[in-house]
Each structure stands twice: as structure tokens, then as C-alpha cells.
């Protein structure tokens, strides 16, 4: 088989590669090259680009996110309706810090002189009251061009209801060859601020992604470049250049896709993925499929394209412990990051969560990052002891306290994506990956009364692996804003068909056979008057049953229904999936009669909940399918450590995942 598929995930520290060639999976980790992320990629791909080979490369990139967070996007102009030029400044009229007397600094994404209002008006029902004047548009574009803008965002009032005026503006833009980001194409949904923000951020990123991807393509020879989006699927490089906003929150998307597939294969379709890194922890709820949300923001900017519902908190291995003015212990959100890093790295003096874990014996100091990095338990003890003196606690009690508080912060994140969304965490397993997750996963699961913990194989390159498990996915939506009794099935169906036709054409252009393309229709609904929508599948041949489906979901989420209230259809949504060839996860036979004790490298003291144990440290690579261990124990591999508490047992499954359960020991 000559088909080579390569997943590449660019992270802050490492660029991860998962290469599927000749039916086998290889992984590779190279240091990232932040100034030009393409360098690390090309270095890692060298041998696959030789001899004119044409691998498919699926790329997860943070170029868009970083450009936005670091404010290194393009100079752009905004064209909106006259009288609403300040829409991005006014936002929702709120301040970030409720009690901040000093105020706050804000840097708008579009400079003051480049926000243009034109005379035009559309009503909320999509009727044109005043058509825009082409001469006025031309004059505005002259001024924008003279100011040297690289892209133009177009967002007119009520354009979600009728795109005609925006089309006129974009014709003029096209005639001048300017990059255009048009709200009624990108996000035809009501709420002018959020739509305009999404459209402007997209414009801001267009030239950046254009440069980055064009450069990468030029060096990739015959390779086909695909780019991961934040909605769980990838798109072609050409589409990513036109709608870079869709890649802007894609960082954790690969990991989420891998979580879905790996946990499903392991027989756990319902999991909470738990990715604890150095500075933050990402959690996401998976119930046989990835859940999505439209209520996102990057930095200060609302971005309303659908993305995987991932909640992030500022708690990670590098979170620093501190004592506040009233004498209470706090952990994070300040982080020591990778530099200076935890005290045990030898540079910084702040006691971090990693230091606390080291003090408690949850890390093997001789085998940190596979033994490649020297760490100092003495420095950790000293740092934790400094905190302990200030709160009058022993080193061990302080270390346990730091871990407990970090756990409480992360538990809150899991509550947000489960209980606040109407799910009971007890029905889910915890799927833990990321460098620090394995040390906390069992505690977290116990607190939330989750039955099992999965720690996957390849946890260190899970995001890149996910890229090879992803499909191509496109999302379309349009605001309808009609009550259910007034809406006709025919009209909804037509709206869906329009998108399906467009999506199918695009998928075929991207190389998918018609038979590999599937459509998923859904509706965002709410009781007339509410402002949060609930997404309900729309698969039938009529609108019958929609009301009941909506009421059911509302009851599940909020425990009550309004039987007499009108129900409104806010948006129609179409998700179009091009089914991509995927790698198969390798399944190994169970080894009979093996002895896991052979994988014990040493024993070391371990402290848990105020007691001391002597715990074996297992080399994960020495564990085989079917192996069973009893806690307390540590299981280490090159990228992470898994802590098995005293009352837990562990089973290695046929995919080499570690499955932890309470009282599972024999």
C-alpha cells in the first residue's frame, strides 16, 4: 500500500508526527520552531517528500490562534451600516472586571479610521429599505486601499436575514481583488456584535494563514495539505485560507477526535476527556459523539463558528501555589510554564503542582520524561516547605493540599461540561491524557464518582493521532427566527437543501465521492423569548415531533418545560461530513500467564491521603494486554506518569490502554 497519511500537530514546545505508511503507525516528536512553524514540519517530513511521493498531510496549527492572541494579524477595514461603525467597540456594553476601579486596556481589532459606515438598511425580515450605493462603496474602498488594508470585513445590520446588500459590497471588493470576509456567507446568524466580531476576526487572520499555508504548500511538493478545524473535521488548505476562523480554536480538536475513537474502541463510548498540561487543563464531554458549542471567544473576541465543546481552566502541572493576604492557600492561575518551570527543574523557586506530586512520590525522579530530564526532589521539598511554613503545615500536608486544590479547580471544569449541560458524570469514564493528567485522574474520578479511568497508549502524540482519525467536516447555518407553528417544513427543507447542494459540490471538489458524503440536519430551538438555543436533530420529513424533541431536551437540561409557550426555530444547521480513509487502531492479543511484576523498575515511598506506602514503579512498555496491577503503584512511560491509588486496580486492555477502577483488584 503506497497510501501515506501523516498527522502533524504543532504545539508550543513540540511538533508531533503520526505517520501511517505501509499499514503501520510511526510516531515522531521534534522541537517546534515558533518563528516559522513550517521549518519543524518540513524537517520531519523530509524523507516522505523525496522521490515525488504524494502523502496526504493533515495539519493541526496554532498559527491563527497565536496571531490573534499576540495581535499579529493583518491591517483590516470594516464595512458596516452607517450609525453602527462602533459595533466592535461597544460590544455588549460590559466590562470584564466587575470591581476593577482602574479600568482596563482594550485594543480594537480594526483601527478607528478604518471602520466605515455606508448608507443602507435591511429590515429584520430581510426586506431592503435602502439599497447601498455603489459609488459610496467605491469611495470607501478607495480610502481603505489608500490606508493599505490587506482584507475587508463586511457586516451589515440584519444581513443574516437578507444577504443582498452584502453581496453588492462583496462584488465591489472582488472587482478590486481585495480579500473579503462577508458575514452573511460566514455566519448568517442574528446578533450583530457576535457576527461582526467573527467576520472581522476572520478577515484579520486571512492574510496570515494565506502566507503561512502558501509557503508550506510550496515546500510540500506533491503532498496534499489539509488543515484541521475546531469543529472536529479538516478542510483543504484553500478553504482554510478563505475561512481561517474555522481553524482558530483547533488546538485541542485532534485530541478530542482521538479521545472519541480510542475510547469507543476500548468499549467506553461515554467519556469525559481530561487533558492536563503544564499551564491549563482542557476537558470535554463525549457521549458517543463530540458535542459542539457556538458560544466561544478567543481572547476578547466572540467567535461564533461551531467548535467542539471544550472547557479550559488555568490549572496544570506548572500552576504555582501561593498564600493570599488572608492566609489561604491558592493554586494558579499563575503558572511557571516550561521556563522557569517547576522548582524541581532547577530554575524557579515557586512550588508548583508538579513539585507537590514529586514530594508525594507520584513522580519517579529518575524517570521524568523517560529519564531524559534531571529533576531535583530536594528543590521541590524546599519550595513546598516554604509554603508550608506560611500556612503552618508539614511538607507532606502542604503538598497534599496543593494537589487537592488543583483537583478542586479541575473538578469545577468537569462540572461545567457535564452537570451544567445536564449530564451526570457518574455515567462517564474519565479519559486522561496530557503530561500531568495521569497523576490526578484517579483522584478526580473518585471525587466525581466516575467508574473508570482510561489512560490511552500514545498519549504523548494523541492530538496528531486524532488528525488521522478525523473526517472532513463543513458546517453551515442560517438564522430563521420563526415560531414552530408558522414555519413550513418545505421552507426548512429548502434551506437545508441549498446548503447540502453547496456542501456536496465543495466536497466533490475536495476529492470526495458522492457516496462518501453524509449530511446531518439540525435546528437550534428555544421557547420564544429565551436567548439560549438547544440543538435538536432534524431528520424527518415533517416538523411533527420537533416540539416533543425540544421539550425533552429542555427538561433534561433544565428539569422543566413550558407546555404552553411557543417554540421558536432560531437557526438551521447542516453538518456535512466527507468520510475519509482512517487508520485502524491496532488490537493486540491478550498475553496469557505473563507476569507484570517483571515491569517493576523499583519501589519508592508514596504518600496518599495522609498515609505512607511503598509503591512499585512499573515501566509501561513492559506491560502487556491483560496485565493486572493493584494500587498503590506508578506506571511511567516517556511522556507521562499514571498514579494508581491504594484502593484502585489497573488492567491493560487489548489496545494497550490502562483502565483504572476502584476495587478492581483480585
Amino acid at each position, binding site marked *: 500500500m503506497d497510501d501515506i497519511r501523516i498527522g502533524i500537530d504543532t504545539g508550543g514546545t513540540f511538533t508531533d508526527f503520526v505517520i501511517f505508511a505501509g499499514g503501520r503507525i510511526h510516531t515522531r516528536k521534534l522541537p517546534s520552531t515558533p518563528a516559522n512553524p513550517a521549518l519543524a514540519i518540513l524537517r520531519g517530513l523530509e524523507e516522505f517528500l523525496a522521490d515525488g511521493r504524494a502523502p496526504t498531510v493533515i495539519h493541526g496549527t496554532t498559527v491563527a490562534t497565536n496571531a490573534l492572541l499576540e495581535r499579529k494579524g493583518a491591517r483590516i477595514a470594516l464595512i458596516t451600516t452607517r*450609525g*453602527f461603525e*462602533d*459595533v466592535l*467597540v*461597544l460590544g*455588549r*456594553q*460590559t*466590562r470584564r472586571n*466587575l*470591581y*476593577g*476601579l*482602574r*479600568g*482596563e*486596556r*482594550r485594543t480594537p481589532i480594526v483601527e478607528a479610521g478604518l471602520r466605515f459606515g455606508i448608507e443602507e438598511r435591511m*429590515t*429584520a425580515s430581510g426586506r431592503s429599505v435602502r439599497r447601498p450605493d455603489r459609488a459610496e462603496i467605491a469611495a470607501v474602498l478607495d480610502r481603505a486601499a489608500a490606508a493599505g488594508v490587506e482584507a475587508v470585513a463586511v457586516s451589515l*445590520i*440584519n444581513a*443574516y436575514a437578507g444577504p443582498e446588500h452584502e453581496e453588492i459590497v462583496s462584488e465591489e471588493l472582488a472587482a478590486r481583488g481585495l480579500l473579503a470576509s462577508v458575514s452573511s456567507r460566514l455566519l448568517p446568524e*442574528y*446578533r*450583530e456584535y*457576535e457576527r461582526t466580531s467573527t467576520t472581522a476576526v476572520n478577515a484579520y487572520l486571512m492574510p496570515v494563514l494565506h502566507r503561512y499555508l502558501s509557503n508550506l504548500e510550496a515546500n510540500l511538493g506533491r503532498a496534499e495539505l489539509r488543515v484541521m478545524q475546531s469543529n472536529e473535521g479538516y478542510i483543504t488548505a484553500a478553504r482554510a485560507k478563505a475561512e481561517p476562523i474555522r481553524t482558530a480554536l483547533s488546538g485541542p480538536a485532534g485530541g478530542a477526535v482521538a479521545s472519541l475513537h480510542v475510547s469507543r474502541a476500548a468499549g467506553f463510548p461515554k467519556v469525559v476527556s481530561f487533558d492536563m498540561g503544564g499551564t491549563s487543563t482542557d476537558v470535554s464531554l463525549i457521549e458517543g459523539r463530540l458535542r459542539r458549542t457556538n458560544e466561544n471567544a478567543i481572547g476578547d473576541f466572540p467567535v461564533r463558528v461551531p467548535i467542539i465543546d471544550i472547557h479550559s481552566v488555568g490549572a496544570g502541572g506548572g500552576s504555582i501555589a501561593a*498564600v493570599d*493576604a*488572608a492566609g*489561604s*492557600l491558592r*493554586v494558579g492561575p499563575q503558572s511557571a510554564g516550561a521556563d522557569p518551570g517547576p522548582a524541581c527543574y532547577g530554575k524557579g523557586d515557586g512550588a508548583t503542582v508538579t513539585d507537590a506530586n514529586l514530594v508525594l512520590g507520584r513522580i519517579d525522579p529518575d524517570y521524568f520524561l523517560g529519564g531524559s530530564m534531571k529533576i531535583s526532589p530536594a528543590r521541590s521539598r524546599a519550595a513546598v516547605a516554604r509554603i508550608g511554613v506560611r*500556612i*503552618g*503545615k508539614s511538607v507532606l*500536608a502542604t503538598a497534599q*493540599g496543593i494537589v*487537592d*486544590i488543583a483537583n*478542586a*479547580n479541575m473538578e*469545577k471544569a468537569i*462540572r461545567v461540561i457535564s*452537570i*451544567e449541560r445536564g449530564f451526570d458524570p457518574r455515567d462517564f469514564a474519565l479519559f486522561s491524557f496530557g503530561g500531568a493528567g495521569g497523576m490526578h485522574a484517579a483522584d478526580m474520578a473518585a471525587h466525581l464518582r466516575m467508574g473508570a479511568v482510561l489512560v490511552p497508549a500514545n498519549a504523548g502524540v494523541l492530538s496528531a493521532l486524532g488528525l488521522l482519525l478525523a473526517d472532513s467536516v463543513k458546517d453551515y447555518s442560517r438564522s430563521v427566527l420563526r415560531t414552530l407553528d408558522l414555519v413550513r417544513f418545505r421552507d426548512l427543507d429548502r434551506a437545508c437543501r441549498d446548503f447540502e447542494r453547496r456542501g456536496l459540490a465543495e466536497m466533490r471538489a475536495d476529492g470526495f465521492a458522492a457516496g462518501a458524503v453524509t449530511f446531518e440536519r439540525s435546528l437550534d430551538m428555544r*421557547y*420564544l*423569548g*429565551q*436567548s*439560549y438555543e438547544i440543538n435538536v436533530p432534524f431528520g424527518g420529513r415533517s416538523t411533527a415531533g420537533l416540539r416533543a424533541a425540544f421539550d425533552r431536551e429542555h427538561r433534561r*437540561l*433544565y*428539569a*422543566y418545560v*413550558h407546555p*404552553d*409557550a411557543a417554540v421558536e426555530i432560531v437557526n438551521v444547521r447542516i453538518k456535512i461530513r466527507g468520510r475519509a480513509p482512517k487508520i485502524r487502531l491496532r488490537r493486540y492479543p491478550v498475553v496469557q500467564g505473563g507476569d507484570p511484576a517483571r515491569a517493576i523498575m523499583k519501589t519508592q515511598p508514596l504518600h496518599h491521603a495522609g498515609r505512607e506506602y511503598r509503591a512499585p514503579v512499573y515501566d509501561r512498555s513492559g506491560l502487556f494486554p491483560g496485565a493486572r496491577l493493584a494500587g498503590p503503584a506508578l506506571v511511567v512511560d516517556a511522556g507521562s506518569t499514571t498514579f494508581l491509588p491504594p484502593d484502585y486496580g489497573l488492567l491493560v486492555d487489548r489496545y494497550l490502554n490502562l483502565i483504572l477502577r476502584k476495587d478492581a483488584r483480585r
Partner: protein
Amino acid sequence: MKAFDPIEIEIFKNTFVSIAEEMGAVLGRTALSPNIKERKDYSCALFNAKGETLAQGSHIPVHLGAMPLSVQAAIRALPFEDDDLVILNDPYHGGTHLPDITCIMPVFIGGRLEFFAANRAHHSDVGGMTPGSMPLATEIFQEGLILPPLKLVSRGRMNEDVLRLLLANVRTPEERRGDLLAQVAACEKGRQRIRDAVRKYGLSKISSYADLIQDYTEAFLRRTIRAIPDGDYAFADYLDDDGITDDPVKIAVTVRIRGSRAVVDFRGSSSQVKGGVNANAAVTTSAVLYVFRALIEDDIPFNTGLMRPIEIIAPPGLIVSAQFPAATAAGNVETSQRIVDVLLGALAQAIPDRIPAASSGTMNNVAIGGYDPAAGRNFAYYETIGGGMGASREFPGLSGVHTHMTNSLNTPLEALENYLPLRIRRYALRRGSGGAGRTRGGEGIVREYEFAIPANVTIMSERRKFAPYGLRGGLPGRPGRNTLISGGKTVRLKSKANFTVQAGDVLRIESPGGGGYGPPRRGKK
């Protein structure tokens, strides 16, 4: 005073705050009216059995100090039983102004009342003289339906009589019912989470931290006050008028700092007035606590511990301690802002580097109501408009935001135009309205409404005569302005006005800019 464990306090703080925030998420998502769901004009909090706040979600500051008084009034008025839910809005029995309806649910553990989960939401109509229930009234009876503490739910059963009476007295009953059910659902969520926490940690632990968390917050405030130089600091400012006469209304304060204690003395302020700008003691307490909370530059839970180091002196019958039956609709939303302005003005003399110039000082309340023949229904809509933030030593004031006692969101005009027979013609910064200074005050907002059908409009605004002050040589922000353009004629409206508009009329609200900080540089406006 029992000392808290430095590790456990952090975990329980986290627990209490997250319960309050989870209640808020339920309320915001399930309410029906734009004012609650889009603008998030509500607050949720937890209380111990004495009615002391343990933690409150970060929502609307003006609700903060007032909510424990609601719970305490309900405790005095009624015997609580398991599965009850009490509602109230009576400013003279635990409320602030009538549109703010508070729901209080007792949490029984093992047959004993141990906690309360409560929330307060601004309803866009509770009856009274004009749609939106922010009328130019002279006594509270004209302002809407008065709800003393009443059981809306009694031992798990909805008290339909109370609900029917309530809904019969408001202009938009369906919306009110939906919003009330959302409030009930939020209380239930709070109760459930408190019970979960008790199961997890045990009642004695939770109860003891319910007290300790207040000690914790108190410790922060005492530290903060101790850092302010001892002394007496006096300041006064004015409300434009009470909406009935044109007389300015004085608010005077002397803040006496002594060690870790502060006395806030309002003697010398005007007596209560005829129009609705009267603030009751709950509103004044909220404003005072907001200011002291804002001085603490740390992330701490907002609870009753904040009250302990502070004594408020306000003999009954002042504009800041109004007595029955004074009208109070604007006391909560307008007078509260001026109380903040005078407190900050006084503290600026003690800690000038840390206090900003005056912000716009008004919420620019606009209530619109009428009958929409196309939709075949009554409508009652309420919104507030932000303004300029006062500049601080470090930063220019933000433009076009809500400041101090509120942080409610705007309603997207695309939502508004979808549901109401009007169009927004302009929603923009009001250029040049921020006061000049070394750092500039933020700009106010211009918002223009064009009506498609006749409607009744009430405006409750402030700072149309008395400008938001600048500090340390900074210039004041420009006062606001209300204008009606009808049949080609432009009419200047007062700070507070009620009037009828015709199809095609345009209402323009220009909100004040914030004050500047420090002398403006030469050659710079």
C-alpha cells in the same frame, strides 16, 4: 473566632462560588424576557440559616448588599417549611425597587433549615402606571404590584392563587411566568448542589465553613481599610432632580476611617423626595459594599463578612434611607450610582492614586410599552444604556460600557428589531463626551430609536445637568441629553420623562462621558 484551615477554605470557597454561578447559568439560560436572558440582569447567592450571604455569583453589584436583607425579611415574615419558595419585591420588606423580584428557597437538611438558595431578577414589567414599571410616580402604590414575602411554592406545590394574582397585575403575564419559573429552577439547582456538598463533606464541615468564609472575606476588607490613612473625608454631589420637581437632590457623605473600621455617614443628605429616586437602606448598603469590595484588589467571595467592619449612618427618611410609602423605582438604578460617586469622591481625598474620576453615573433606563397590532399582543420592554467610564491614574476610561452598580449586557438590536415594532437608527460612541485629562474619560453612547407604531415611553436618567466629575485637574465628562424628534420638531426632554410617541418618531438618548484624570496636556483636547 475559629481559625480556618488554609487548604480547606480554598476548597469550600470554590464550592460555594461555583454553586452560585451554576444557579446563574440555569437562570440565564431558561428565562424568557430579553432583560434577564440577553442582558443578564440578575444575581444568585447562597445564605446560611441566619440569612447571611456565603457567596454570590459575579452578576449585578446593586443586588449584592441587598439580598441578605431580603432573606432576613422573609425569615421574619414567614415560617419556612421544606420545599417552600418565597417571593418578594416590597422595598419596605426586603426589596429594593418593585421590578426586582427575589425568590428564596430554604434548604432543609435532615429536617432542619440550614441554608437558603436565592436569586433576584429584574422583571421588565410588574404593572403600575406605565409599561416597564419605571414610572414617574410619587408613591410606591403607583409603581406596580407590591409583593411582601409570600409563598409562591408551599411544600412543593405551586400556590396558583398567588401566581394568578401576580400575573393578573402585569402587562406581559406569559413572560413573567416564564421568568419566575426560571428563577424557581435556579433555586432548585442551588438547593440540589448544597445537598450534594453536604453529602460529600458532612453538614458540620459545610456549616462551619459557611461562617469561616465570611471571616475570610472580612479579613481582606480589614486589611484594605487599614491601608487607608485614618481621617474624615467628606464629599457631596447631586441628582439632577426627582422627576416631579426640578430641584436638585443632594447626597452628602463623610467617610471616617479608623484603623480597620470605616463609618459611612450620610447625614447632611437631602430628605426623601416625592419622585422615584428614593433609595432605601438596602440599596445604600449595596452601593457602600460595592465601593469597599472594589478597593480589595484580590479575587475574594462577596459575602456578609464585608459588612462587619463598616457602619452606615443614615437616619430614616433621607434620600438614602427612604421610608414607606416613598416611590423607589429609580433609587436602585440611578441613586445607587450617585452614592458610589460621592463615596469615591470622599475616598479620593484619602487615596488619590487609587480612585478614578466619576463614571457616567446613570443607567439611562428606557422602558417602552404598548400594543403591537401585527403580533396581536402587548409588549413591555426595558433596557439600560452604558456610558463613559471615569479615567484612572493608569488607564483612560472605557467607552460605551456599564459602570459601577450594573454590568448588564445590551440587547442585540437585531434581536430587538425582530420582536418589537421599532428600529434602531444609530448605536455609536458619542464622540467628544469623555472629559479631557492626562488620561481621558470614556465616551458616552448615542442610541436612536425609530418607532413604527404608537408607544408609551419612560426615561429614567441622570447626569443631564450635573456632569460626572474629573479628578486631580481632569475635566468633567459631558452631561447626557435626551431628545425627541417628532413631526419635524426636535424637543429636548428632561432627565426623567414619560410620553407617548407616534409612528415615525425618533428618540435619541445621548449618555454622559466619564470624567478625566489629571490635567490635560497642552495642545491636547
